[in-house]
C-alpha cells in the first residue's frame, strides 16, 4: 500500500478519444496552448502540463469523466479557481484536470433556515453577496475570497481573518455532495445539525481533492453583526505584541479578528494602501470587535485597556466604516504589496502555539541572514497561523532553491515548536516532505488506508498531501519505532 509513488502510463490519444465521446467540444481542452493556463495554481514555482482539461457543465458529465478515467487508469486533479498556494491543483503529467469552474450557480439562499446551497465553482465572496439582502453572510473569509471557490475552500478547509471567532470552513459547512473516482454519488451531512454514522464531513473537508470531487455545498449563513470596529495598536517589540495577544485571550475576549504585521510587512504595504500604519512600530496588531453597538463599545473599551497594560506605544480605534476598512486594507493587501517590492515571494503557512511567537520570529531573522533573503511576516495572531513572505528573485540562479530551503526550515521549526506545517493552505505538493516531519510512519499509513477506503485505485490527485513512505525514507525523515526500520532495503542519507 502506497509505500512507493504510483506510476501512470496514459495513452494520450486513447484518452482524448474517450473524453470526446462524453464531453461536447467546448468542454474539453487538449491542445498545448489551451492547457498552458492550467499548468499551476497560486504556487507558480511548480508547473506541469496535463494531458487534458475537462470543463463539465453537468453533474452527469462529472460522473462520466471520473468513471472513464477510472476505467482507463488516468489520474484526475480537481480544480476550482486555482488560487491554492500549495500546488494542490497542479496537474498530473499523465492525467486530466477536472475544472469545476462552470458549476458557478447559487442554487438557493434560504433566509429562514440561514443556509445557502451552492455549486462548487461559486466564489467565496459571491455567497456573502447573495446573502447580504437578508442581513446574513458566510463567515469564512480567506484573503482570496474574491476569486477562490467554495469547492477549493472545502478541499483546503480554508480560513480567514474571522476564523478565531467564527471558525474554519469545517465549522460552517452543513452538507456536501461528493462523487467518488468510481462515479458514485455520496451525500454527506444534511441541513440538520448532525447526521447518522461517522462524521465524514469532517474527514472530507480539508482532504485536498484526494477523496472525492465536490459537486454541491450547503453552507451555514450567520447574521451580519450590526457593527464592527477595529483597534490598531503599535508595539516597539514583537514579543510584547505577542504577549498582548495572550493578554487579550486571558481577559476572556475572543475578538472577531486578531492580526499582526511586522515592520517589514507594514513598510511594504503602507506606500501601497496608505492605511496610516505606524512605520516606526516593530509590530502592529489589528483587533476587531463585532456585535451589537453595546457589545462592541464594551469590548473595545476592554481591549484598549488590555493593550495599554501590555505596553502598546500607540492605539487608534476606527471611527467609521471607511476607516475600519482602511485599517484592514493593508493586512488584506499584504501579499500583493510585498509582490510589488520583490520580483517573487514565497508565502509560507505554519502554525505555532502563540507563546512561541517571539522565538519563531527571532529564528526567522536568523534564517534571513543564513539564506541571504528578506522575509516579511503577516499572520493570524489570534490562532498562531504565520504567513512569512520570503522575498526572492526567480531569475537569479539558486535563489528559488534558497527560498525553498528557507521555507522548509520555517515549517520544520513550526513542528518542533508544537505546531503544524500548514494552518490553512494545505500540504499539496509543496509541503509533502515536511509531512514526514509532522507525522510518523503509523499515522502516514493510516492516512493511506483512509485514502484507499475512498479511492482504492489512487487516481484522485496522486502525489499530493500525503507522502508515500518511500518518499519519507528518501527525505531522511523516516521515523524509526522500536528500533525496526521500515524499509531496510532503502539507502539512507
Amino acid at each position, binding site marked *: 500500500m502506497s509505500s512507493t509513488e504510483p506510476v501512470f502510463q496514459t495513452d494520450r490519444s486513447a484518452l482524448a478519444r474517450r473524453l470526446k465521446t462524453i464531453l461536447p467540444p467546448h468542454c474539453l481542452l487538449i491542445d498545448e496552448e489551451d492547457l498552458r493556463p492550467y499548468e499551476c495554481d497560486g504556487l507558480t514555482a511548480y508547473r506541469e502540463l496535463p494531458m487534458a482539461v475537462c470543463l463539465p457543465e453537468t453533474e452527469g458529465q462529472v460522473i462520466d469523466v471520473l468513471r472513464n478515467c477510472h476505467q482507463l487508469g488516468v489520474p484526475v486533479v480537481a480544480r476550482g479557481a486555482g488560487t491554492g498556494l500549495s500546488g494542490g491543483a497542479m496537474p498530473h503529467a499523465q492525467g486530466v484536470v477536472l475544472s469545476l469552474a462552470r458549476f458557478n450557480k447559487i442554487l438557493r439562499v434560504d433566509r429562514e433556515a440561514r443556509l445557502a446551497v451552492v455549486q462548487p465553482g461559486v466564489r467565496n465572496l459571491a455567497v456573502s453577496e447573495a446573502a447580504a439582502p437578508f442581513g446574513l453572510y458566510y463567515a469564512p473569509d480567506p484573503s482570496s475570497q474574491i476569486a477562490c471557490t467554495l469547492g477549493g475552500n472545502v478541499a483546503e478547509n480554508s480560513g480567514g481573518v474571522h476564523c478565531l471567532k467564527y471558525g474554519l470552513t469545517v465549522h460552517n459547512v452543513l452538507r456536501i455532495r461528493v462523487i467518488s473516482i468510481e462515479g458514485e454519488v455520496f451525500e454527506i451531512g444534511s441541513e440538520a445539525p448532525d447526521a447518522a454514522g461517522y462524521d465524514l464531513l469532517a474527514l472530507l473537508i480539508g482532504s485536498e481533492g484526494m477523496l472525492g470531487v465536490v459537486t454541491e455545498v450547503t453552507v451555514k449563513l450567520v447574521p451580519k453583526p450590526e457593527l464592527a470596529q477595529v483597534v490598531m495598536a503599535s508595539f516597539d517589540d514583537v514579543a510584547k505584541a505577542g504577549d498582548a495577544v495572550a493578554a487579550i485571550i486571558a481577559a476572556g475576549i475572543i475578538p472577531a479578528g486578531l492580526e499582526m504585521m511586522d515592520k517589514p510587512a507594514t513598510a511594504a504595504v503602507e506606500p501601497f494602501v496608505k492605511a496610516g500604519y505606524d512605520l516606526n512600530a516593530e509590530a502592529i496588531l489589528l483587533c476587531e470587535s463585532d456585535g451589537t453597538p453595546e457589545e462592541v463599545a464594551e469590548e473595545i473599551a476592554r481591549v484598549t485597556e488590555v493593550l495599554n497594560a501590555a505596553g502598546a506605544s500607540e492605539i487608534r480605534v476606527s471611527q467609521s466604516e471607511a476607516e475600519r476598512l482602511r485599517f484592514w486594507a493593508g493586512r488584506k493587501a499584504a501579499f500583493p504589496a510585498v509582490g510589488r517590492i520583490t520580483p517573487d515571494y514565497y508565502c509560507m503557512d505554519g502554525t505555532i502555539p502563540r507563546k512561541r511567537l517571539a522565538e519563531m520570529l527571532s529564528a526567522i531573522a536568523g534564517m534571513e541572514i543564513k539564506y541571504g533573503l528578506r522575509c516579511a511576516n503577516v499572520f493570524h495572531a489570534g490562532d498562531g497561523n504565520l504567513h512569512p513572505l520570503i522575498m526572492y528573485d526567480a531569475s537569479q540562479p539558486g535563489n528559488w532553491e534558497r527560498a525553498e530551503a528557507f521555507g522548509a526550515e520555517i515549517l520544520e521549526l513550526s513542528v518542533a515548536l508544537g505546531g503544524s506545517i500548514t494552518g490553512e493552505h494545505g500540504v499539496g505538493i509543496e509541503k509533502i516532505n515536511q509531512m514526514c516531519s509532522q507525522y510518523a510512519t503509523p499515522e502516514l499509513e493510516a*492516512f493511506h488506508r483512509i485514502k484507499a*477506503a475512498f479511492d482504492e485505485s489512487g487516481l484522485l490527485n496522486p502525489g499530493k498531501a500525503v507522502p508515500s513512505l518511500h518518499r519519507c525514507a528518501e527525505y531522511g525523515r523516516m521515523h524509526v519505532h522500536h528500533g525496526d526500520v521500515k524499509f531496510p532495503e532503502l539507502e539512507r542519507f
Partner: protein
Amino acid sequence: MTLDKIVLAVRSAHASHTPLRIRGAGSKDFYGGLLAGDLLDVSGYRGITAYEPTELYMTARCGTPLSEIEAVLAEKGQMLAFEPPQFSGATAGGCVAAGLSGPRRQQAGAVRDFVLGVKLVDGSGQVLKFGGQVMKNVAGYDVSRLIAGSLGTLGVIAEVTLKVLPKPVAEQTLVFALDQTEALKKLNHWGGQPLPISASFWHQGQLWLRLSGAGAAVEAACRKLGGTSAVNSDQHWHSVREQAHPAFASDVLWRLALPSTAPCPGLDGLRAIEWGGALRWYAGEQAAIRGAAARLGGHAVLYRAPESLRCLEGAFAPLSPALLALHRRLKKAFDPKGILNPGRLYAEF
C-alpha cells in the same frame, strides 16, 4: 493505569480476535447498540496533561472526569463551550466518543467542533497521533474530528485535546408562553438576527431562551425580546444539560436532529425542542418516526429504549448502501479485525 496497559490489552485482543467493549464511566451504557465483548475499562487512565488558558486548549487523558476538567477551567473563567453533561462521572474519552453536545451547541458548536487533536490506540494496538494543540492545522486528513461520535469503533481515545473558550460575562434567561409551532417560528426568526442567543428549550407550551455575552448586549437583547425573566435559570439549564428535566423521563426516548425550520412531524409524544428548533425529543414507541425524520431532511436516534426495541429498530438511522460500504471500509482501515465495540454503532460492523 498507563497507556501501555491499554495498548497491551488491545494488542492481545487483536492477536486473539477478541471483541472489546471500551468503557469510560459507563454513563452511556444505555446508548447505541447492545454491549458486546470483554470489558476494557479505561477510566483509570486519567489526568489533565496540559492546559494553556491563553492558547485556549486543554489536553486530558481519556479517563479524566469532565467534572475535574470543568473545575480546572472554571478557575480561569473558561469552559467547554459545547456543554457536555457531567452525568455520573462522564469522562473526556467517552464524551468525545459519544459525540453528544449540550444546550450551547446551537451557538457554540458541537463536540467535534472543539476537538483539536487525539491520541488513538487503533484496532491493531498502534498509538496514532492526529491533530495537535493548535487551532489551525490542515496537515493530513482530519481524523481527530472523525473520531467524535464514532462510539469507540475506530480506536480507543487515549488522550484528547479540546479547544476551550472564556465563559460569557453575562447571562440572562427569558421565558415565553408559546405553542410548538409558534416557538419554532420565533426561534428561526430570532436565529437570523444578531442576537446573543446561547440556548433554547421548549417544553409544554413554554419556551426558555438563554442570552449570553457582554453585559450591555444581553440587556439590550432582553429589552428587545420581551418575555419574562426566569428565576432559577441556572438550575433549569443544568437539568436540561444533564437530562434530569422531566421532559426526558421516558422509557423510550427518541432524539431527532432536523433542519431547524422543519415543521413538527405529525406524531404524538413531542417532549422538548432544543437548539433553535433543530433538536427535538419524542417519547414512546413510534413506528413511523425514522421515515418522518428522513422525509424532513434529518434523522432519528433511538436514544434510550429497552434492549428488545433497540435490537428491533437499531439505535441509529440506517445508512444508504453506498455509505454503509464506505463506513465498513473506514472501520477496517482503523480496526482490521473489527474488535473494537462491534455493533455499538451499527450491527453491520
